[in-house]
């Protein structure tokens, strides 16, 4: 159990983390979400006592990090892919860490095997690719077989196979009863791994909720219909008092009706359907709406070109609805994603 209590960090007059209070519980993956510069990495550094908080505190099972003896056996952390001496081999980098916390040397080979770096164990780590560096960092986090694991953007630089692997690793570790705290700026990634969600923007807590609740509250579900007899279909729906919105490509979107009811309705009127599917609005959009006011580093589009569209992400199951999200913030034309969601829909 990790407790943050009024954690605040100021760099000069810039407030990077602002009165952050929350708990991170064992036995689950807690996602730590926020846009660039939200203060995720700073918070994690304070948790490891690397940065001194301006005020507030972090307790790990009631203790301050500095009072842990052999902390690698309590908490393993991956902060940065670049946090090892490049002139030293992967094996020796891990060996130094193991020795400082009296972890048996046999663990070094074990964790190198776990992350798939056995073949390059004796190679100098400066030649490692970003993904290999990330794996080495994960190996160092696992070294002490700790009850708490903290990963700062672990998927950064990993290939799809690696992403899949780290996702399963985190779930497996959580299933063993460990505390997993993982940061990301991708909601879609969190939707696949996290059980609980802590969202921050400009250092402030925006949401502290279970993943299920977040999905429940933030995803609009609707049914998509496509039919060669669209005119008849619309008439039938209209007669039943069902509101259908046309969304281009000859598809209709219907809120608040089940696929079963609509399928039976079409069958009763012998209307041919080419598509009948239930859809969900992208959680990414919900996340962006939540943090829209606190995004600091907007992408500014050049010469009136549309801002880059969001996605596609690996989390295909969270299909974005055609057209812009309901209630998408109107004013902020530059805000990276929400403005772009409509234009990105082309193909």
């Amino acid at each position, binding site marked *: 159990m990790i407790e943050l209590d009024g954690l605040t960090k100021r760099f000069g007059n810039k407030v990077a983390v602002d009165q952050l209070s929350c708990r991170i519980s064992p036995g689950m993956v807690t996602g730590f979400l926020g846009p660039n510069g939200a203060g995720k990495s700073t918070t994690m550094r304070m948790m490891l006592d690397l940065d001194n908080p301006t005020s507030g505190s972090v307790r790990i099972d009631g203790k301050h990090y500095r009072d842990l003896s052999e902390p690698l056996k309590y908490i393993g952390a991956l902060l940065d892919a670049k946090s090892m*001496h490049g002139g030293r081999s992967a094996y020796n*980098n891990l060996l130094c860490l193991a020795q400082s916390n009296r972890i048996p040397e046999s663990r070094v080979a074990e964790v190198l095997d776990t992350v798939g770096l056995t073949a390059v164990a004796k190679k100098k780590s400066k030649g490692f690719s970003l993904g290999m560096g990330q794996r080495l960092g994960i190996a160092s986090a696992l070294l002490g077989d700790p009850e708490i694991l903290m990963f700062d953007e672990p998927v950064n630089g990993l290939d799809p196979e690696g992403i899949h692997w780290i996702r399963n690793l985190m779930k497996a570790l959580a299933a063993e009863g460990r505390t997993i705290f993982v940061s990301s700026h991708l909601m879609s990634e969190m939707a696949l791994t996290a059980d609980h969600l802590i969202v921050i923007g400009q250092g402030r807590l925006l949401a502290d909720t279970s993943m299920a609740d977040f999905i429940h509250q933030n995803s609009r579900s609707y049914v998509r219909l496509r039919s060669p007899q669209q005119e008849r279909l619309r008439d039938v729906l209209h007669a039943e008092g069902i509101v259908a919105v046309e969304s281009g490509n000859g598809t209709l979107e219907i809120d608040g009706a089940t696929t079963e009811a609509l399928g039976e309705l079409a069958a009763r009127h012998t209307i041919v359907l080419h598509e009948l599917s239930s859809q969900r609005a992208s959680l990414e959009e919900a996340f962006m709406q939540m943090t829209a006011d606190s995004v600091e580093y907007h992408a500014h589009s050049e010469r009136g070109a549309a801002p880059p569209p969001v996605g596609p992400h690996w989390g295909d199951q969270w299909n974005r609805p055609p057209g812009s999200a309901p209630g998408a913030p109107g004013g902020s034309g530059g805000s990276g994603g929400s403005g772009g969601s409509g234009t990105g829909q082309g193909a």
Partner: protein
Amino acid sequence: MASVPAVLTSEWTKIRTVSSTTWTLISAFAVTVAMSAALCAVMNSQFDDLSDAERATFDPTFISFSGMILGQLAMVVFGVLVVGTEYSSGMIRTSLAAVPQRATFLFSKMLVAGVLALVVGMVTSFVSFFLGQALLGDHRIGIGEDNVLRAVFGAGLYMGLIAIFSMGVAAMLRSSMLSLGILMPFFFLVSQILSAVPGAKSVAQYFPDQAGSKIMQVVPDAMNSDPAPYGPWAGLLIMVAWVAASVFGGFLVLKKRDA
């Protein structure tokens, strides 16, 4: 609390598993011994060309350490890299996450690296002394003479202290490049030049290298150098004070600042 022997073991592994340790320490040894030997040979052949004052204060012991002017620079590099690469590689965060007690971390590192530098310094000074004496011919001195063993021992100590001083500076500046950029010109040029400039002399003789090098002299004001207002042991003490200040400064920076 972290176990100190465990941290010492870890720091020893860090030092022995990077190549910079080997090449800096071998350079410190080789450069000092080679340059000292060359100067001893030159002195031997040109002894008669020396001025009367130089002949009167001829110090065969001190001459056999003359290569340290260059060799100490390799010790500076060793000391700076031991601490500085923690910062340049980003390793410092990993290291402090493993050993959050910053005093334990820094002093263990300095202890391990300092002892190693001291051992290499001692070997260097003894080899340098005996080789130098062998090349000095009739002008040589034996290790059993008054104060000679003190000077040879002191020369080894000097090398070790230079390395520890550099570690402190690197811990204060948190950068290898910056530390080397300041220390190398300082020890090689600034200190040497200022000690020859009439007005600056009186200040320069309190610099760590100037004060510390007095321990290597057996003849007072060796080779007609300027008389210092302190003896060899007081000179060494001045150097130790510099080293202590640099180590303490490094510790304060590590303790206070975000990693």
